[in-house]
Structure formats: C-alpha cells, structure tokens
C-alpha cells in the first residue's frame, strides 16, 4: 500500500499506521450537505442567479426573447430604464402602488390593532369573532377580487341596493371611475389582510406579562393609557414583523388587481406587477426586466435595513 508518487495525501501516513483516517473537511457531514443541496441550489440558481440574470438582461435590447448578443450589439446600457421612466403607463402603475400601499398599510394596521385590542378584552365568542375576521386570509386573492368586483358593481351591487332602498341619488361607482378605482382595491385588500394583522397583534398583546397590567392598575393608570404608553412600546417587534409581511405582500399585488379590475378601466388601475408581466411576455422583454429590477430595488430599500436591524441585533445578544 505504499504511496509511490511523491505527493502524500493528508491522512495517508496514519492510514498506513493502521489508525482511523481523519475525515477530510469537505466530506464531513456528507449526508447533511447532500440533503441540503436543494436549498443551496435554490439559493444559488434561483434567488441569486435568476435575479442577476434579470438585472443583466435589463441592460439589453431584448424584445420577445432574450437578446442573442447581450454583450455586443444588443447591449443597451440604461436606455431601457430611461424608456421606463418616460412611460406614462409605468408612472400610473407606480402611483397606484404608492397610493394603494400606503392606504392599505395604514388601514390594515389601525383596524387590525383596534380589533386586536377589543378582542383582548375578555369578551365572549372570541373564537367566533376570530374565525370571522381571519377567514378571508384563507381565500385566494382572485376570489377576493371577484367578489368585491361583484359587490361594488354599479349596476347590480351596492349602489343599486342603496338606491332601491330609497336614496335615489346615492352613487358608488368608484370601480368604474378612473380616479377612484384604486380606492376600491384598497377596500378589498384591507378586507383580505386585516385578519392576519389582527391575529399577530393579538398574539403580541397576549404576550404582555399579566403582572404589568396589575401594576398599572394598582398605579391607577386607565386602560387606554396603559395601551398607548406601555403596551404598544412593548410590542415593537410584533409591529415590525407585521409591517414587513404586509409590505412584502403589497408589493406583490397581482392576483387581486387582475381579478377585480383587470388593470382598468383602461389603464387606470395598472400596477407594476401587471406592467411587468405584460411587457415581459408580450412586447418588450428587457423593459419588463428593467421594471422588475426597479421593483426589486424598491423592496430592497424596505427589507435590507430591517434585516440588518433584526439579524444584527440578534448577533449582539
């Protein structure tokens, strides 16, 4: 078993001596490493790889298919981004996202928190109420969009019902109104997502030590004041987590809009995700990719500081 070549592998001497071979670093935990390859592959090829691909090809002039010569004649620099910013349709999409995002965020949090506080008051039928508030979360956004489209339909829905009751001049045709259609999306989006925030907040409220409540009661602090000055500051982590989840969901809004308004009337309820989809698969690939990258950057602006805050803190603890 003598090693005739000049190079000795680590461990060969020990092998010749008859002792157990010390494991080579790479092969340790081999089973674990193999088992985790799907995860690692996903990270490398999808999350990193695909993202980089998108960002790279957004710098080219791809039309229906990816450019054949991306580094050569098809290289376009930032021209797709320039076109993007000049596109009226993109402007509308971004506007809609901002309006929808801010309004939904505010309403979801305010309503969600208030509902959680009320549910925390040791009421009867708590389980029933919670089931009612949370069931929309179990539905697809498509269903939400369709049913609210139906309910807000001027000809058959809310407007007609109220008029039938006697108020002839009542009008609620927001969904057909270019300026107001975004707000109908807010109504539907809030309906879907508030239950989740309420459930998270309620869990956070329940996590507040009972003795803090006793102490504030002995101190004579009224309940509402205790909520505002003591409990809410204690719930900061829950708020942040819920904020990130809801914000991440808002940026992804696609199904809801497709089902409820289809982007219409006309282009008035376009959203970035719809814009991307249509350009990417239909007319101008690289512009769609540029739009995707812009979306990515927006998300990064929200998520990266939060991740730094959250994970950085844990490392110091």
């Amino acid at each position, binding site marked *: 078993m003598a090693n005739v070549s000049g190079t000795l592998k680590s461990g060969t001497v020990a092998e010749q001596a008859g002792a157990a071979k010390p494991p080579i670093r790479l092969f340790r935990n081999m089973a674990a490493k193999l088992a985790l390859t799907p995860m690692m592959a996903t990270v490398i090829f999808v999350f990193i790889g695909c993202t980089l691909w998108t960002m790279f090809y957004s710098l080219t002039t791809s039309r229906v298919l990816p450019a054949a010569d991306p580094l050569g004649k098809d290289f376009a620099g930032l021209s797709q981004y320039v076109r993007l910013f000049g596109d009226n349709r993109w402007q509308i999409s971004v506007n809609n996202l901002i309006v929808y995002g801010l309004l939904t965020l505010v309403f979801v949090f305010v309503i969600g928190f208030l509902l959680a506080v009320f549910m925390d008051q040791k009421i009867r039928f708590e389980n029933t109420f919670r089931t009612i508030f949370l069931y929309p979360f179990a539905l697809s956004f498509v269903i939400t969009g369709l049913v609210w489209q139906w309910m807000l339909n001027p000809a058959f829905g809310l407007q007609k019902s109220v008029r039938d009751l006697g108020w002839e001049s009542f009008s609620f045709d927001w969904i057909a109104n270019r300026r107001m259609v975004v707000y109908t999306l807010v109504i539907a989006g809030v309906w879907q997502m508030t239950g989740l925030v309420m459930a998270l907040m309620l869990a956070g409220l329940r996590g507040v*030590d009972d*003795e*803090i409540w*006793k*102490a*504030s*009661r*002995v*101190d*004579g*602090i*009224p309940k509402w*004041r205790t909520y505002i*000055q*003591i409990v809410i*500051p*204690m719930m900061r982590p829950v708020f942040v987590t819920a904020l990130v989840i809801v914000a991440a969901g808002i940026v992804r809004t696609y199904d809801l809009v497709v089902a409820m308004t289809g982007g219409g009337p006309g282009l008035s309820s376009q959203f970035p995700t719809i814009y991307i989809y249509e350009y990417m698969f239909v007319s101008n690939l690289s512009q769609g990719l540029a739009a995707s990258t812009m979306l990515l950057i927006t998300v990064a602006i929200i998520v990266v500081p939060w991740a730094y805050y959250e994970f950085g803190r844990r490392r110091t603890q």
Partner: protein
Amino acid sequence: MASVSVREMSLSFGQVEVLKKLNLDIGQGEFLVLLGPSGCGKSTLLNCIAGLLDVSAGQIFISGKNVTWEEPKDRGIGMVFQSYALYPQMSVEGNLSFGLKNAGLPRDEIARRVQRASDILQIGPLLKRKPSALSGGQRQRVAIGRALVRDVDVFLFDEPLSNLDAKLRSELRVEIKRLHQRLNNTMIYVTHDQIEAMTLADRIAVMYGGEIQQLDTPQAIYNKPVNRFVAGFIGSPGMNFMDGSVANGSATVFRTGDIAVPLDRYRFDDAIKSNGEAVLGVRPEHIVYGSAASGQPFSQEVEVEVVEPMGSDTLVWGKLCSQNLSFRVEAEKSLKVGDRILIGFDPGRASLFDNASGRRL
C-alpha cells in the same frame, strides 16, 4: 382598629371554591406573612385584598374603610410583584413617577417623593437607566420604590424574592426587614419559603386549600403547630413523624412498634385524650444524643444509616421501630454508617396529631 381586615371572605371560580370564608385582622404596622405551598390560595388572597380580584362573598376593610368595591388605586395600597413588572420602555425615574403624574400631582411633590424613595432604597444612581439595564436585585428595589412613592399605609408583596438566586434572596430579605423597621407600615407578604416567613414575620398565616390553617407568631407556629400539615411545612430540616397509637392506661403513652413514649409531660389541647391512631412529631433539633440523651424522659439506641454533613452541623438518619428518624449532631462529631448511638428527646417539646384529621391533640 385593625389596619387590614378580611371578613367572611370567599372566592369561587365557577364551581371551584378557592378561598373559603376567610377571616383575618392585621394590626397597624404589622408584618404579616401568608405562607403556604403552591395553590393554597395565598396569592389569590393577596390579589383580593389589593382589589385585583373580585370576591364572591365577604368584605375587606383597609384603614377602617370598606374597600370591597373599590379599585386598587383607591384602596391605599402599594404592591410589589414577583416579576417586578416594571414598565420596560421607561426609565427608573419614569417608572416611579408614572402613577403620580397620572394622578395629577404637582411636579415638585413628585420629585420630592421620588427623591425620598431613591434615598431609602439607594437607587439614586439608577434613576436614568431602563429596567433592562438593571440587575435582578436592583429591579426589585425599583419595584419597591414604585410602591413607596404612593405614600400609602399598606404594602403588599407577592413572592417578591422568588425570582432571585439564593444569595440575593437573603440579602434582599434583610433589606426588606430593615425597610419595615424604618417605615413601620403594615406589610402583607406572600411566600412559599418558610425561612423568609420565619425571619420576616410578626405573625404568619399558614394557608392550605384556601383556608388559614394557623395564624400565630413564628415561634408559636414552630413550637405548637396546630395540625400535621403546618408541622411538616415549617422547620427545615423537616419534623420527624412516627405513626402509632395513644393508649390510655395507668399512664398515657404513645406506642409504636415495641416502644412506648411516655406522654405525661405532654400538654394535650383537648381535655379528651385520644385513644386511637396518632402521629408523633419530633423536630430533629429537639433530639439529643449520647450522655445528654440518657437524661431524657425517652431514649433509645438507634443505628446510623445515612450521614448528611451540612457544613454547620450534620444530619444523621436512623430508624426507630422501622420508621425514619433524623437528628442533628455537631459537625465535629464523626459518625459512620452502622454506629449505634443513644438518642433521646423530651415529649413535652413534641407534637401529637390525630391520624385521621391531622389535628393537634
């Protein structure tokens, strides 16, 4: 006039009666300890006195006023909790002054009270810190301070030292005793630790199963426990118990196995002397050995089975008529397993309990 009075108070949660027709009078400036195992109702009783729990029946008086329906803040009490319950996002100063600000007290009055509390408890240098930056002992002092600034007559403590390690516990125990001596307020203190109870209390209320088993000074409870439960709960190491029976013949003796303990020096509570099954209780520290034992009304030779050196002295285990018996010897006395030694005790210092009811005879 009693400082705190509980009259015929009961508390039930649904069908379960947690506190059963309690009666308790606590004098002005008295340090009363509610002592008992988990689930005996001591914390519940404290919470009722504080007004955090609604009673099902009965009344509560504090400083002569009927406070049964009053909110905690109107009862003239301050409370200290097991988990300190400090408001985490406020500084120490904020914690101390929050309640006062809410009550609308003028700023200089608040400052004066905070200053006084921080002087007494020596937390002055900590005023600007947040609770998360304090040690356990410091947090507990701040919690006491929060009760102090309320300028009340009655302080309630709900197992305040249970979250601290042993060394801190004994340090803070002394501080609480000093605080009581300095302020002379009425203090009601809940604990499951009988050492805390014995060292701090003017009187102890031993509780079990929602009832007060015995309300007396620590010495009285130690020397004459009113039932088997109290006897076993107080005193560490625990009392020795021997099953047997009381026989009334020419002389009253306690028989177990083949030995008879003369009971002529024992003071029976009832005029009726039991004639049935009974339990004899003797504390390890009341058992003497060697030459001292031969002078005792009862003595017997036992074989050493286990020796537990505890530093200050040694606990020795043997068997008396096949029932375990422990007694104390000096640390210097070296005993080996298998040694035979004479032990004895005075039945006058022992306790006799009825086997069925556990009541003292």
